[in-house]
């Protein structure tokens, strides 16, 4: 009996110790992201790159435990899973040296293993410098696989630094899902750092994706247009009078949205012409950026389907998409092509402020003056209370001269003043303008930078037709491409524009029609196209100039080429707005 009692005592003690240990473990700080609780608010999809995919993120079982599952969208581009590293690490942000991740792959729909690779992206330091390193799971017997990545630089607080994992390449087969698990952030000694898993992911600031879109001026916001609905469901509001007044020829309705299939269009349900979709479903295709987050519907497209008399469109404006959708904002404005400066020259040190109607500036450098030639444009990055800014040439032989007062093209925080506008005020002989350049505004203002360059314009594109499968890379001066589809060729008409989403080391990219009857033909090279390092546009008319008017003689092969190593993510043709 005594023996039984003592065994019982030992058992009770052991249980007690176990529960104590368990309580201690619960209280211990978390230093690994294992997704067992299903939460992953500290990460999200980063869409800062032109090829970003709208993948699905979810927690699902893999290899006997919970893991983050990444499933590609039908577009099958590249997902970038970004982490709020500052929120996760808090005060120990400066200590982090590496990250350890378990990568796993599903087998393909054919039941076979297909290797997958991607990259770790680090954005570190004061200038948010980008660096990357490959990861891969390349053998069935090494799936899943733990990979340790050493960060390229130091993460700084409040510098917009972040870290992302992409999935870029697969060896054949339909795209498979990948899994991330047991993520540990390690210090220099390789010890995992405690994590705050309540951190919230906030998309890093990467600028709005304005691909395929026009810029808007004189913008009128549609107040509180934020709503959601399921696929093929419509939701919206009555347009306020100010919004209706701004709907005039040359204007564009712009919608900020998110939808699973990337689609978005508008509906005028009370139009006299009948319940009317515009911008989708056979009634035109609105302009949408490559990230599928902004749609633009030109006034003329609405007119085409709802009639010329705006009053018959009636006041109800709704949105709709082919999948579940959310709209975050709607506005209307006059359209202006986005301006790109070619061979831009900066005027160093032009960071000045002034009170309303005060002028401040600096003397132009010879390099800047040399770049001021017919066709050039001065770009002023500025901020002012009333959104107005212009230039002053106080020493001009024509007299103290204001240029483009209330006439500069203002797009967001940039003002554009053309050479011809200066010439109209100061005279044709540039040498008489003299070297002093100043800014001025009708309210307190600050100019952050001033550049001059040849003016290039990006067109907004409706009725976009993609050329499927045009994801290719090439070395400098190498050409690669595919044959154009009949749909694509049909869309190549006067007024159309080929748009290429790409990256290249020196920013240059153009197209090549190697089988053209006119001979092997480059189009848009030597800076004749408009390219900003992400998007390049070549007009139908530029192709005609090189390859001739008869489209059938251009033949079907379309290639790209650059003067440095390049990658093209997509090619499409659309109608310039």
């Amino acid at each position, binding site marked *: 009996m005594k023996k039984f009692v003592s065994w019982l005592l030992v058992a009770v003690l052991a249980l007690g110790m176990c529960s104590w240990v368990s309580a201690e473990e619960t209280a211990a700080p978390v230093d690994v992201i294992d997704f067992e609780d299903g939460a992953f608010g500290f990460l999200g999809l980063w869409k800062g790159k032109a090829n970003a995919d709208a993948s699905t993120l979810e927690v699902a079982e893999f290899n006997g435990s919970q893991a983050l599952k990444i499933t590609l969208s039908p577009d099958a581009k590249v997902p970038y899973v970004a982490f709020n590293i500052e929120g996760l690490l808090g005060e120990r942000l400066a200590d982090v040296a590496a990250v350890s991740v378990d990568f796993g792959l599903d087998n393909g729909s054919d039941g076979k293993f*297909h290797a997958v*690779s991607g990259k770790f992206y680090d954005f570190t330091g004061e200038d948010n410098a980008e660096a990357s390193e490959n990861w*891969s799971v390349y053998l069935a017997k090494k799936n899943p696989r733990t990979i340790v990545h050493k960060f390229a630089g130091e993460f700084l607080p409040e510098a917009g630094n972040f870290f992302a994992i992409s999935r870029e*390449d*697969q*060896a054949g087969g339909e795209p498979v899902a990948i899994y991330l698990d047991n993520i540990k952030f390690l210090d220099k000694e390789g010890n995992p750092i405690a994590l705050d898993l309540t951190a919230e992911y906030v998309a890093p600031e990467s600028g709005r994706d304005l691909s395929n879109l026009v810029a808007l001026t004189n913008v009128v916001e549609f107040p509180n247009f934020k709503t959601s609905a399921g696929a093929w469901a419509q939701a919206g509001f009555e347009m306020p009078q100010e919004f209706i007044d701004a709907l005039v020829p040359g204007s564009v309705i712009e919608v900020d949205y998110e939808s699973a299939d990337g689609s978005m269009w508008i509906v005028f349900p009370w139009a006299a012409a009948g319940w009317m979709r515009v911008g989708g479903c056979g009634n035109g295709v609105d302009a949408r950026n490559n990230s599928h987050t902004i749609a633009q519907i030109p006034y003329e497209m609405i007119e085409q389907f709802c009639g010329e008399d705006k009053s018959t469109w009636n006041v109800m404006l709704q949105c709709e998409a082919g999948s579940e959708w959310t709209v975050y904002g709607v506005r209307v404005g006059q359209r202006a092509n986005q301006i790109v400066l070619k061979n831009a020259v900066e005027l160093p040190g032009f960071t000045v402020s002034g009170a309303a109607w005060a002028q401040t500036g600096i003397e132009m450098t010879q390099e800047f003056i040399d770049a001021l030639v017919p066709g050039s444009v001065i770009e002023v990055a500025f901020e002012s209370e009333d959104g107005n800014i212009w230039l002053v040439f106080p020493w001009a032989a024509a007299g103290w001269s204001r240029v483009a007062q209330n006439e500069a093209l203002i797009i967001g925080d940039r003002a554009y003043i053309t050479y011809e506008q200066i010439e109209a005020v100061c005279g044709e002989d540039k040498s008489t303008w003299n070297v002093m350049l100043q800014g001025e505004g009708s309210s307190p203002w600050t100019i952050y930078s001033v550049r001059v360059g040849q003016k290039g314009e990006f067109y907004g594109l409706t009725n976009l037709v993609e050329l499927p499968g045009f994801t290719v890379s090439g070395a400098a001066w190498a050409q690669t491409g595919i044959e154009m589809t009949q749909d694509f060729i049909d869309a190549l008409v006067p007024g159309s524009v080929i748009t290429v989403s790409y990256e290249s080391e020196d920013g240059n990219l153009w197209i090549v029609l190697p089988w053209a009857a006119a001979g*092997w033909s480059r189009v848009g090279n*030597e800076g004749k196209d408009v390219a900003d390092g992400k998007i390049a546009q070549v007009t139908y008319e530029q192709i005609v100039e090189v390859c001739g008017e008869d489209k059938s003689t251009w033949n079907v092969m379309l290639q790209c080429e650059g003067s440095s190593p390049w990658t093209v993510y997509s090619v499409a043709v659309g109608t310039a707005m």
Partner: protein
Amino acid sequence: MKRILALLLVALMAVSMLSALADEPRNITLAVWWDMYYDSDDEGWEANPGATGKESDIMRYDNVKVIEDTYNVTFEFVNPTYAGTIDSLNNSILAGEPDFDIYTVELGWGVPAVMNGLACDLRDVLDPDDPLLSHEDPIMNFVDLSNGAVSLLYAKGAENQVDHVYNLAFNLQMIQEANLEDPRDLVERGEWTWDKFREYCQVLTRDIDGDGVIDVYGYGGWLGDFLPYWFMSNGTYIAATATENFSSAEVGETLKFLQDLYITDKVAYPIPEESGWDVCRWLYRDKKVAFCTTTTWILDSYKDYTEADPNLDFDMVFIPYPIGPSGNAETNSTQLANSNYWLIPSNVEDPKLVYNVLRQYVNWFQGDTELRDDPLELEWHYVTTSNKFDLQEYNFDVMMEYGSRTMVDFLQIFINDIPFRQFLDGEYTPAQLQEQYKQVVQDNLDQLFG
């Protein structure tokens, strides 16, 4: 007794199972990041979507059976992705267990792998008199590396030899009109030297209309196309090993020679600041140069000779680059290693078997090199250079001969880091350029060799 019999039976069964296991053929794997054909998984020549059923397709498919029967192995292509191939090469070999028996590599990371001991040196594996080691094997060849390792392998064959060569070429009629001896004869007699070339360029550079502007230069080309070959013609290179060679005396000699052409004699077409590549590659078409550096794809761009009625009214003749004071006509080359190669990892099991399997895979034509090098399959390489049969053959032979020796120079990877155009404009002396940029070359090599 029954028990003994039963035990015997069990023992027999075990032996038979073991021997069956021992007979299980080894699977030889080749890592490559694109689709390759054929391997033991393929069930017919149709497995290759690019095949049409021609004789060579069927021979390539049947060759897999030859591999299996000859070496008692199966043969498999595995696609680990591009990044996965590099990952596996750099990690699994170091760990002592290579994931694959053969790796496809690019020069930029294949050479560092060899230099760091990750690749098998076939000098330690093959018989000393194996023809591969002396470049005499008709099937396989290797890239000569500074450490002598026989590791970076590629298939021999006419197509590989002529595909990427950048030839020196001349306008035959200009030479004839200037009453100069045909350079081919000088090559034949071993008198084709830098001095002779400089002399020719001086004669050929002319202001035809007397307006003070040079109309024809002796030589012209794009520096991205010609630079490595001029260095080779003096038996040297910029960056072929882990240590820079930019500061060497031989490179200095070559730089001096180029400045003699461009600045001292002014007999080479000045390279424009903008679009130099586009201007300089086509100078020969407008008869603005007598000699130039060119290649088949350049001649094909405007179908110079491939149309029934040729676009040019003169002939282009290929010849080797003239030999500099430190050069050697026997080793001169117009082929720069810049393609994909195979390597066998250093600690692979039975590397000789692996090599034999790879060689047999390449040898789909079963030793019949005429079939492999069938001119009908290589027609494009003939007809792009001339509309005259004898010249087509001559140019092809020059490409074959000087393309047979593949040289290594990593210069192309960082050529834009060195201001060669400004150098040819006289902004630097050879010594200044070498001194100021030798560290740039070394930094690039350090990055390359890890």
